[in-house]
């Protein structure tokens, strides 16, 4: 939270203290524990197609864990590939809609399969962490969900390599991004979407200025909430509204871990995606295509499966609301126009990368 004046006499300019040694040590063990966990679960995933030998040393990799995403994947792959991702490493969690075949058929995808519990594997992170230990070391790695489309300043003219080279030259190991929930004009389940179409043709509305940010100890990450989901589903209990900041792009080291989805990572310095002194760091956006027509049906399934998030019971109500096919659009929604517009709105920033 922004410091609000506080008591007179408090120095409003006090810098954030570095974590004390004990905290640092605790975080270190936490990281090691997560690594060990990933290694212990490595046999839960079975290779279906392994093309990792074709990965070039400077290739940008994309890691993802999917379940029944046959509808979104064609566009997701097309978009992410066009950005300059050379290889996708995917874990398929028991899909039944042809997701596995779709992924296995693409020659820049390596695919693993698992039938183990999504929830018990930290929502797929344990599996991905193992793959990242094996294949991500030394590479710039994107960790995404199938409903996230990465954009960043100048993305139509500058591939990811331009960005990662610039980040390298600037001595930065990561780039942060805000998840921007997109939604259609009418009820979310009403606009038909066909696999392979550009989802932003249907989902071209978003909330431009209702994000709430706090800084979180002990990992020093931001905690961003807000957007249409907070507005429509969590107004009564904003604390439970989904977390929206991510660190999707990291120059990976096999000793790194993601802690909570890709919202935060360890070591702690990877969470420093923001400038604390008033300047702006380069940041992107993850255009979140969650609210395509299948969402209504999928929420029903999620509700049955009870696999999502730390506290499934907590989200029951949320899924119930989505099943009612709500309209997220308001007269104050903003129409999606392009990255310059998104940057002018302050949702992302070019930082020093002009």
């Amino acid at each position, binding site marked *: 939270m922004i410091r609000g004046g506080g008591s007179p006499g408090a120095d409003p300019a006090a810098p954030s203290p570095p974590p004390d040694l004990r905290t640092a040590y605790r975080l270190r063990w936490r990281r090691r524990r997560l690594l060990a966990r990933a290694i212990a679960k490595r046999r839960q995933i079975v290779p279906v197609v392994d093309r990792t030998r074709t990965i070039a040393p400077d290739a940008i990799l994309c890691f993802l864990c999917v379940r029944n995403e046959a509808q979104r994947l064609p566009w997701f792959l097309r978009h992410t590939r066009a950005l300059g991702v050379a290889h996708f490493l995917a874990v398929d969690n028991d899909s039944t809609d042809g997701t596995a075949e779709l992924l296995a058929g693409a020659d820049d995808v390596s695919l693993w399969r698992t039938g183990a519990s999504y929830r018990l594997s930290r929502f797929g992170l344990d599996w991905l962490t193992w793959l990242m230990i094996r294949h991500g070391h030394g590479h710039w790695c994107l960790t995404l969900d199938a409903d996230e489309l990465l954009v960043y300043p100048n993305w139509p003219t500058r591939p990811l390599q331009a960005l990662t080279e610039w980040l390298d030259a600037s001595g930065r190991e990561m780039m942060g991004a805000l998840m921007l929930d997109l939604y259609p004009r009418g009820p979310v389940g009403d606009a038909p979407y066909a696999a392979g179409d550009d989802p932003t043709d249907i989902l071209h509305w978003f909330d431009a200025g209702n994000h709430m940010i706090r800084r979180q100890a002990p990992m020093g990450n931001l905690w961003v909430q807000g957007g249409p989901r907070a507005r429509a589903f969590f107004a009564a209990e904003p604390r439970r509204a989904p977390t929206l900041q991510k660190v999707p792009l990291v120059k990976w080291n096999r000793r790194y871990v993601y802690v909570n989805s890709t919202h935060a990572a360890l070591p702690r310095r990877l969470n420093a995606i923001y400038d*604390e002194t008033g300047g702006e760091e380069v940041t992107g956006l993850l255009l979140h295509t969650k609210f395509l027509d299948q969402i209504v049906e999928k929420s029903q399934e999620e509700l049955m499966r009870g696999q999502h998030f730390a506290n499934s019971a907590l989200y029951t109500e949320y899924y119930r609301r989505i099943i009612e096919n709500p309209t997220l659009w308001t007269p*104050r929604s903003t129409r999606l126009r392009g990255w310059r517009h998104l940057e002018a709105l302050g949702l992302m920033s070019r930082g*020093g990368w002009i």
Partner: protein
Amino acid sequence: MRVGFLMLCHDGLDRAAQVAGYWADRGCPVVIHVDRRVSREAYDTLVAALEGRHNIRFSERFRCEWGRWSLVAATLAAARVMIDEFPTASHVFLASGSCLPLRHISQLRAYLAERPGVNFIESVTTEDVPWTKGGLDHERFALRFPFSWKRQRKLFDLSVRLQRRLGYRRRIPKGLVPHMGSQWWCLTRGTLQAILDHPRRAEFDRFFKGVWIPDESYFQSLVRLCTDRVESRSLTLAKFDYQGKPHIFYDDHLQLLRRSDCFVARKIWPRADRLYATFLSDRTATESRAEPNPGKIDRIFSKAIERRTRGRAGLYMTGRFPRVQTDAGRTCARYVVFEGFGDLFEDFPAWAARTTGLRAHGHLFGPERAEFADGQSVFSGALSDSATLRDYNAVAFLTNLIWNTRGERQSFLYGPRDTVAAGDFFPYDLNADVFAITGAWAIPLYLSGRPVIEIRKQAAELQRIEGKHLDHLRSRWAKARVHVWTLADFIESPVEPLQTMIDEIGNKAGLRLTEAPRMRDLTGFGQFLQDLRNEGMQPWLVGDLRTGDSAPDRPARPKPYAVR
């Protein structure tokens, strides 16, 4: 008139080959230095790619490290080859493997021909250089640098500090005045030869071997000893960011580069296909005589540095979350807070909107909901009017609102019933104009008609909250422009404060108070206050209001407090 090019290459050799070939094919001799760290195969590929061109040479390879003498050594070796092997080269242009010619070579020739004997090299004394990074300017020459800045930063810094502490100073060769400037220059053959064959060169070389970043000072200093025809600017467009590293040009910079009218630009991203395709074709009209003018695009770069280092004030996002709240930085635009006005006047926001042109909200932080202007339930940026959502992070709510409505000044009502966190924030915001009538919270209590005995506790609580809020407004750290009146003072003579307010807001110039807001009917209010006192609650924030006599059931008297 023949321009020879020296090219220092260390990566992106395919692009270097393309550019070297471009120059060579247009009659310019090229000498290429390839960093020794480049693999043998890559080097051979480059040589093979340029095979068959009679005017390309490769100079002795040095292992180049940024900021070190090796870069100068490489340049000197290449220059020697150029002088010895291409006797017709009248000018020598130093470029890098990531340079790209922006204008046709004939334009550069014509430009140089019009200015015979002029050396284009940025060369400024250390006192006048504003752009050095890391605070080292004169010390680049006066200290020793045994450690690598890139690989041994800590030792580097330590040794600099130590030498400063000890007061260590190297002796600068007699007659040599240290100058610095861009690494990229264009010298006449005569000048370059004079530098290469300078009788004291061995002494100078020995000195510069110990200088930090000599590639920005060797030729820049020696040129002053060899010629007096120095035009202190570079023909190469090279921009640096706030970290001191060169800006990279991408395809989307095409128009920008064109506008600069510079002859050569660096650094180009090796995969900027469109830039290479455009500028390495012979499409440009050969008649253009425009003066190179990097200044035309300077604004864009200085704005970029500002964006990176100072950011957009009042914006909170995933890339900007300032811990240090600078004076101007809490919100992005000015806004007005009216405290107590909503209680005293009927429909005050409508009046404020009419008279001052502000976007006037009701109690934005009201306990039931955020009362956006015109009763909207969602406001700019899809801000929700939900009180829980707003109170979850009241400061973010306010900063968002101000950010979302950039260009339109906002105002809102505030009072002790509203979210306290907001009132802890805006007193410290330079963008806030606060006009407060203290004690006005008593009016709705009075108008509620509830028995005093019931209200007493609530009144005390509101007074306590407002008292604490006033401490913030009066804090010596407060940044907002604050005006406080007690309710008693205000209703004694409301016109003057209202006029002050309008003047201060100054949204429209020269506004006169033509229409006063309608005050609520305060008949019997004095008695109400007295009743509060009688119950043991002292409404001191209301001020010294004439209570009249304490006769309980006086007939309605004319409204003494109405504004006329």
